[in-house]
């Protein structure tokens, strides 16, 4: 099962939904890893969307598991990229050429959805009009509030900042602008005195 029900939390924490077909002139779908399943589910509800659809897919560790099934949906354009970072120029180009009436569907990990949402917002789409559906890993994209460095795919709390090496506590406090949760030093008063790291949501 790739769906995970996040427990209720503070207002800052993003809440994800279920992708639903919406009327539009063009449909941009960006997904990573198990996010492909959300697009496959969307296709069972409205397969015709994909004729005006552009799928940008980053398989991560799922390899070839989903790529053929996504291709079989018959999207107008289908792009498989090695990493999110590598697909950013393509996403920006698509958004800069787009017109009102574009629908954006994001699925997969929080890091991918947050960053792609940020690109769409900068292109002029209100964040509340961008659909998201979480699938797969609950890993988080974290910003160290001390050195401002970003650590991707954080799965334990606390964790070590990949930039400055501080031990960081994983907060639910989220920044849409940075597309990252905030990590705060957990042993500032008594360096080295820290709880054992536990996996997120276990």
């Amino acid at each position, binding site marked *: 099962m790739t769906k995970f029900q996040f427990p209720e939390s503070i207002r800052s924490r993003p809440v994800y939904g279920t992708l639903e077909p919406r009327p539009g002139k063009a449909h941009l779908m960006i997904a990573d890893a198990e996010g492909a399943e959300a697009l496959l589910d969307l296709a069972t509800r409205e397969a015709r969307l994909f004729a005006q659809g552009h799928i940008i897919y980053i398989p991560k560790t799922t390899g070839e598991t989903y790529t053929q099934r996504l291709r079989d949906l018959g999207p107008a354009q289908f792009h498989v990229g090695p990493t999110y970072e590598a697909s950013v120029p393509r996403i920006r180009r698509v958004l800069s050429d787009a017109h*009102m009436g574009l629908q954006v569907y994001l699925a997969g990990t929080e890091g991918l959805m947050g960053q792609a949402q940020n690109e769409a917002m900068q292109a002029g789409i209100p964040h509340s*009009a961008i659909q998201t559906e979480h699938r797969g890993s609950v890993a988080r994209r974290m910003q160290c509030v001390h050195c401002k460095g970003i650590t991707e795919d954080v799965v334990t709390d606390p964790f070590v900042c990949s930039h400055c090496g501080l031990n960081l506590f994983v907060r639910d406090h989220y920044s849409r602008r940075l597309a990252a949760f905030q990590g705060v030093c957990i042993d500032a008063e008594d360096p080295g005195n820290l709880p054992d790291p536990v996996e997120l949501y276990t």
Partner: protein
Amino acid sequence: MSAAPQKARAGAEKIDVIVSAVVPLNELVTRFEFTRADDKAFPPFSAGAHTVVEMRDGDRLRLNPYSLMSDPADSSLYAISVRRDDAGRGGSLFMHRSVKVGDRMKISYPVNLFPLDLRGRKHVFLAGGIGITPFMAMIAHLERMGGAWELHYACRNEALGTYVDQLTSRYPNKVHVYFDDRNQAIALEDLLDGQPLGTHVYVCGPKGMIDWVHATAAAHGWPDENVHSEEFLAPQPGKPFEVRLCRSDITIQVGESESLLEAMERCGVDAPFLCRGGACGQCETDVIEADGTFVHRDHWLDDEDHTSGKKIMPCVSRFVGKSLVLDR
């Protein structure tokens, strides 16, 4: 409780003004310009804001909202344009017949329920008739800051095309006018098609036009957040009814041609309000007890609130039935 000083009375604060100009524009529309009685600068307003004009019509106090249509950068005057409604409740007729240059009046501080979304990359204005007024201020604002805009303005005919000449001569490439009597109509679907990402559309006009724009834009995949509208409702007459106001501990009668809010004010109850047109939500009132049916006419409460029978907007909504008790 916030630290801000609490207002003594409901509604926005008032400004004493002198009518500095009355300019008839055509058969139905007249512009009224106000300067401050104390010669100070007017408070700045954001384009799209309205003011509530107090009219002393004999022993009757009328309070009508009008969009500010002067240049927001000009703090020396406020201007409104009023369309005469011969079948209306009399506010616009009072303005047209009784207000003269030099008269002293009170108007409210500006309140904006129809602001520009300045995150927008481009602004498309759709005006129907007197709905042109807020766009006059928005255009002045965007021209100053170099914003991208275009106006599509539908009028009944050339003679009633308020500000058409001024707009088309100043902005010949941005203003598009459509006259009903020449069977010209806004090609809305073509207009929405191909607008750049981040475009916002604003509509001010009759209810049918507003609904048409919202529905067409939604069908074309536009987010609700990018479609803005403003429609002030005038309270409609209805059967007189009785209301018990339990906090004030009085029972009042609402007459045929006055609104519930106006009846409360007539009886000395200081009920909250801002727009008086069912849009702002300020006058929302809890219902304690009701035996009868509500006639909801506002744009504020959602359908669930309307059917719940727990809330009413006294500025435009009425009640038919045996008894009504409100928490006011």
